[in-house]
Each structure stands twice: as C-alpha cells, then as structure tokens.
C-alpha cells in the first residue's frame, strides 16, 4: 500500500469505518442503546440509566479523543466541529427540530439503522425520508433556507469554538495546558456522575453500551485522522482526509451519511463516486445490528400501525434530515463525536436535541390526556 495514494487508502478507511460501525450496531442492539429512549426514560418515568449510558459514551469519547489529541496522533481542529464560525441559531433550531423528529420517528439516525437491522420496516421509510431531506438541506431547496437564513446568524470566534481555545483567550492560560486539563475535568466529572448511580453500576449492559460507543467514536477519529490522512495529495498538493464526504477529518455521524448513501446508490455508474467513510459506517451499523438480531433470533419484521403512525415517521424523518444537517450533526455526530472535540456548538446542539425530544414527549402525553 502506498500511504500517499488516496485511491489505495480509501478501502482501508471505508473498511475501518465499517468494522467499527458493525461493532456499534451489534452492541447498540444488544444493550438497547438509544438516545431518544434515554430522554424518554428520564422524562416519562424518571429512569436515568440510558441517559447515563449516553453520557458515559460522551465521557469515554472526550477522554479518548483528548488523549489522541495530546499525544499528537490526530488534530481534532481538522474536523468540522470546532470551526471559527459559531452558527448558534443553526445549532439551536437544527438540534431542537432533530429532537422533535427523533421522537416522532422512533429514534435518531443511529437507532433508525439499528432498527432496520432488527427488521423494522418503518425505520427503512424513516431512512429514505431522512436521507432525501438531508440531501435537500445540503444542496437543495432546504439548503437555500439553511444558508440564506439560519447560517447568516452567527458569531466568528477567531480562536475557534473549542473550549480549550475559548478559555485560553479568556484566562490567558496556555491552550496546550487546557487541552490536557479540560478533557480530564469534563470527562472525569461526567464519569463520576454516571457511576454515582447504584442501578447503573449493577447493570453491565449500560457500561458495555456506553464504553463501546465512546471507543467507536475514538476509533473513528483514528481511522480518518491517521489511516486516511495524506499530508500532500498528489492531485491537489494539499493535505487530505481520504474517502470523506466533508473533506475533513471525520468520526461517526448518522444524518448526512444516509443522504450520501442514497446518492451513491443512485449514481452507481458514476465512477467518481466511491464508498466513503460515512457510507460505510451507515451500512456497518445495519449489518452489525442484523447480525446480532439473527444470531439471537430476535430479528422480527415490524410495520406501520396506521396512517397517523406513518405520518409521524415521515415527519420525523423530514425533521431529522433538515435538523441534523442544519445543526451539523445528530445525537452521535454532534453529541458524541463533536462533543469529544469540546466544541461549544456540539454542547449547545446536545442540549437543544434533548429539549426538542423532551418537549415533544410532553406534547404527546398532553394529546393523549385530551383525547380521553
């Protein structure tokens, strides 16, 4: 393998993403890892187990990604998350709508893929609608609104929006010092909160789901930032992250990759299209979940209940596609991969997603009580 030839590296990047996503899909199915379920358990019954599992994934990703950064193995500033352009309105609106959508659509982008692997045909419809809406928001009709309205409301943060850079500018402390301290402090504080619960400690699946998801995101940075890194692409004479749709270093996210998968399938004969990191990761989650479901004989076909159920899932997919692209990510993309870079926008999006989902559940319950 020639380490400077992007064409030769691409299969290794896609293969690495697929294997990590396969692991995530299998473990996600086994442990019921679900970010919408985490909000539901918390809001509807006061159970924080799955919310702590999600937070554990964030903590592991923060600590692991911080370690890769401090060791000089990857440069997280090469990802899309800690950019200088702080599009706060997009994070809030996109995150909130994504939260609404994932509640109506039986789960976020990653859960949609896990459900497909388990035989849920409703989630297959969500996948298609989400992918089309995401593509429309990337390059189509909704993209004009995103760029022309939402993204115009932004702040430029010259240092970038990651917490080490922001706090360095505010306090005068060296960014290098804060890059070591902040992941330890934030990751450690989240870990302490997560394991303060006896119920959480007593159920191994919570730890399994959280640790594996966090490590998969860390591994994702390694695949894209080390295996897929070319210091000087022979074609452009610039550095490149091979087989990525964004052209930047990527880890896992499950909105835009669903759109790019549809694009790849529709432009199959266009030889300029390749299986990218994101496309491979979406396929990997479905395959991993399906493998687990088949191995444990838990695979089962599921379909729509009625017209209202169908409409809810279609609207859910639309909102997730638009919201996810607008907010630059989802409950995995922004809330774990982005959070691991300590980008302020990722933390804001995480809060907006949870708020959108929680309020939708409150509305759904209010509707039930009104219907008698």
């Amino acid at each position, binding site marked *: 393998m020639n380490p400077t030839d992007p064409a030769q590296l691409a299969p290794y990047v896609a293969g690495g993403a697929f294997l990590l996503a396969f692991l995530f899909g299998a473990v996600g199915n086994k442990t019921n890892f679900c970010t919408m379920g985490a909000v539901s358990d918390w809001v509807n*019954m006061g159970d924080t187990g799955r919310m702590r599992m999600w937070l554990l994934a964030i903590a592991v990703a923060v600590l692991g990604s911080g370690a890769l950064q401090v060791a000089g193995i990857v440069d997280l500033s090469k990802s899309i998350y800690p950019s200088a352009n702080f599009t706060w309105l997009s994070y809030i609106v996109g995150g909130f709508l994504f939260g609404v959508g994932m509640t109506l659509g039986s789960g976020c982008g990653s859960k949609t893929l896990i*459900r497909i692997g388990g035989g849920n045909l409703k989630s297959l419809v969500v996948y298609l609608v989400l992918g089309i809406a995401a593509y429309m928001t990337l390059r189509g009709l909704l993209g004009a609104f995103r760029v022309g309205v939402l993204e115009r409301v932004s702040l430029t943060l010259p240092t970038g929006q990651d917490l080490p850079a922001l706090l360095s500018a505010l306090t005068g402390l060296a960014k290098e010092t804060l890059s070591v301290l902040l992941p330890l402090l934030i990751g450690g504080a989240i870990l302490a909160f997560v394991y303060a619960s006896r119920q959480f400690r007593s159920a191994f699946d919570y730890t399994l789901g959280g640790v594996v998801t966090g490590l998969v995101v860390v591994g994702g940075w390694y695949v894209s930032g080390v295996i897929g890194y070319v210091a000087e692409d022979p074609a452009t004479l610039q550095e490149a992250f091979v087989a990525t749709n964004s052209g930047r270093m990527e880890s896992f996210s499950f909105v835009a990759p669903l759109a790019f998968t549809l694009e790849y399938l529709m432009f199959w004969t266009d030889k300029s299209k390749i299986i990218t990191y994101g496309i491979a990761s979406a396929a990997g989650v479905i395959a991993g979940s399906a493998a687990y479901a088949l191995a444990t004989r838990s695979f089962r076909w599921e379909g729509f209940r009625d017209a209202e159920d169908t409409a809810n899932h279609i609207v859910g997919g639309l909102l997730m596609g638009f919201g996810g692209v607008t907010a630059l990510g989802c409950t995995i993309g922004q809330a774990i991969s982005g959070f691991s870079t300590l980008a302020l926008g990722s933390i804001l999006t995480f809060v907006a997603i949870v708020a959108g989902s929680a309020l939708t559940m409150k509305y759904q319950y209010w509707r039930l009580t009104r219907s008698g």
Partner: protein
Amino acid sequence: MNFDKEIDTRGLNCPLPILRAKKALTDMKAGQVLKIVATDPGSVRDFQAFSRQTGNELLSHGEANKEFTFFLKHR
C-alpha cells in the same frame, strides 16, 4: 390472568407504549390490573424499567405469536 383494562400498542414504538400505559393507569384505581399488548422488542426493557421506577408492579410478561403481553398492577 384477570385484568381490569387493556390497551393495544401493537405497531407502536417507544415512547408511545409507555405514554399510553401511563395515561391508562391514571384512570384506574390502586390494585387494578392493566394488560398491555405490544410488538416493539424494546417494550420488554421499557416496561421493566417503568415498573421499577413508578412502583406499579409488573405481575407478569410473556411473548407469543410475535406479541408481548404485560400485566401491570396499579400501585
């Protein structure tokens, strides 16, 4: 098993089966039994957690013909 009320959540996924059960319980008295029929594989874990958190005892649950049945006793 005898029950006082039944709700059908077949074809629905999280969070709707839990929300419908929660609503049904508000119309019932202490000691009465609610039967829930579901098809979402995640409902088993959901109703176990719901019972643990709310104190409504999960008297039994089972699976037959790709449907899950739960009996919750109102606390």
